[in-house]
């Protein structure tokens, strides 16, 4: 009964406890779009990492979009024709799943995306597209080197975010094994290109990364340098040994050597500590010849 009482009061706490706020205003759509989508999708018809989203509301049903945004790979695996077609078209780069967004939030986001440019502006749009040729960005070696220092954490980010190395691995020269929490970035530049890398770095769409760089967004220079570094890494990846497993050996090897040293220290420090009860000797003497009682 006592336990029931305790549980009852706790359950009361739970019910009164706070829950994730579900009320979404329409004007949040823009902020949500910037935080979650903008790093890969433009609201025009131009491709960034993923397709441009102009007119997406007319092209697909709302239900399809909500399902897709919440778990794209689920739809691909389930064999949805349109989903598979997009997946193949974009070199099988999977889109991040946004399962944590509520239906209301997704609707707010979709309401921000403009419809397809009308017939009257069609010609204008075509002209604009022609006028924007892709100019390959030139990176110097200094940029790549600065990017490397930023990646390793040897040079701090201006606003104080954690180094990339904490969660990401790249196989490059003598950089120590990077983290395994997030993706291996050795070939990321090859898959996403300049625009993709720099847009993800400047506004991370992944929740854990977004939390890490909240209010600590990288400056334009830092984004530029990191992109340069990742490009260099990708270009040299053919000649580099894979160092992603090195960290594991360091941890296990160092761990066991350290454990031995540490145990030695503990046991040496407390060696003269009394390990038996004070009367142990007397107790043993009394038990001589009576083994059944002794443990």
């Amino acid at each position, binding site marked *: 009964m*006592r336990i029931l009482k*305790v*549980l009852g*009061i*706790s359950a009361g*706490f*739970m019910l009164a406890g*706070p*829950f*994730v706020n579900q009320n979404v205003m329409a004007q949040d759509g823009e902020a949500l779009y910037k935080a979650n989508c903008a790093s890969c999708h433009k609201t025009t018809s131009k491709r960034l990492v993923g397709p441009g989203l102009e007119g997406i509301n007319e092209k697909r049903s709302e239900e399809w979009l909500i399902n897709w945004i*919440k778990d794209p790979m689920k739809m691909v695996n389930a064999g949805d024709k349109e989903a598979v077609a997009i997946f193949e078209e974009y070199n099988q780069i999977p889109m991040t799943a946004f*399962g*944590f967004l509520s239906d209301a939030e997704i609707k707010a986001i979709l309401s921000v995306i403009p419809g397809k440019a009308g017939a009257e502006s069609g010609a204008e749009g075509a002209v604009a597209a022609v006028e924007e040729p892709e100019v390959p960005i030139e990176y110097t070696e200094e940029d790549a080197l600065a990017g490397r220092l930023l990646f*390793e*954490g040897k040079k*701090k980010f201006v606003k*104080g975010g*954690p*180094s990339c*190395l*904490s*969660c990401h691995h790249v196989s490059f020269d003598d*950089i*120590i*094994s*990077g*983290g*395994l*929490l997030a993706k291996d970035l050795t070939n990321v530049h090859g898959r996403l290109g300049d625009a993709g890398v720099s847009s993800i770095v400047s506004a991370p769409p*992944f*929740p*854990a*990364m*977004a*939390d*890490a*760089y*909240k209010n600590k967004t990288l400056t334009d220079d830092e984004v530029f340098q990191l992109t340069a570094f990742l490009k260099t890494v990708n270009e040299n990846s053919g000649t580099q040994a894979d160092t992603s497993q090195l*960290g594991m050996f*360091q*941890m*296990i090897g*160092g*761990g066991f050597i*350290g*454990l031995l040293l*540490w*145990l030695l220290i*503990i*046991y040496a420090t*407390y060696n*003269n*500590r*009394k*390990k*038996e*009860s*004070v009367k*142990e*000797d007397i107790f043993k003497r009394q038990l001589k010849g009576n083994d059944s009682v002794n443990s």
Partner: protein
Amino acid sequence: MILLNTLLIALNGALLYSLVGFVIFAVIAAAFYYFRAQKLKNEFGVMEEPKKDFSFTFWILLAITGFAIYLIKVGLEGGVGMLNTLFFAAFPYVAFAIFIIGSIYRYRNTGFKVSSLSSQFLEGKKLFWGSQPFHWGLLVIFFGHLIAFLFPKSLIAWNGEPIRLLILEISSFVFALSALYGLCILIYRRLSTKRIIMVTNKMDMMVYVVLLTQITSGMGIALFARWGSTWFASSMTPYLRSVFAFNPDIAAVTAMPWFVQIHIISAFFIIAIIPFTRFMHFLVAPIDYIWRNYQLVLWNYNRKIIRNSTRHTFGKEIKNH
């Protein structure tokens, strides 16, 4: 692989819930029949004292925990219902409520039972070999987490130099290994020593299973989701702070690998069961023993009797004077 995938998808949603329901039902039914069998046994007089053995309880609990972890993993990865909200936004508050109310309640009602229930008096050697590495390891790891929670910026700055990151990670791993090593010795001691078995209860087995889960999942994070020391400071601290600010933001934890999530859930579970276990002893740890003065014990010996004693064995000098 295809079969496994199909299985995982099939487990999704309603099916998983029915499975959970079935497991709960099976456990309750098993417990019911077990206790009824025991009662019958007692009534129809098996006279000999029942042998106490906790190995069985330990392994069963371990198996149940493993299964529960698997279910939670599948549920969280499949995004079943509100499981994420339940575990990361609601469960922490339930845990803390149980911890605070339960601790006060237990302290007020059975205050003298609030202790580590020391059994050093009954067995000291194995205790020494296990307890020392276990407690030192756990303390260091605990304060490591606390520092990352309180001073994330300093930790990120320290980890800025790769070599310092390696030093921090490897030495933390050493302390985790030390805690695991000590815990294994302590489990062996409790399951194998006759005197200790007599003062053991089922909740002790729970303590061991929960600690094993916590330590091994933590080591799994250190090995397979490195470098945890930095991303704890950058991604977990905001979550924990949001929990303490009564406005939980679970987006980041939702996206973490499953063993990280298990580590978090298991940590809150430990907090929740503190009032019902020997974990309580950390609340009443005699910290002032560290700096208090020696207590002088004066024995009122009669020197003449000692001198003329006909005892044939000599006492040993006390070691820890």
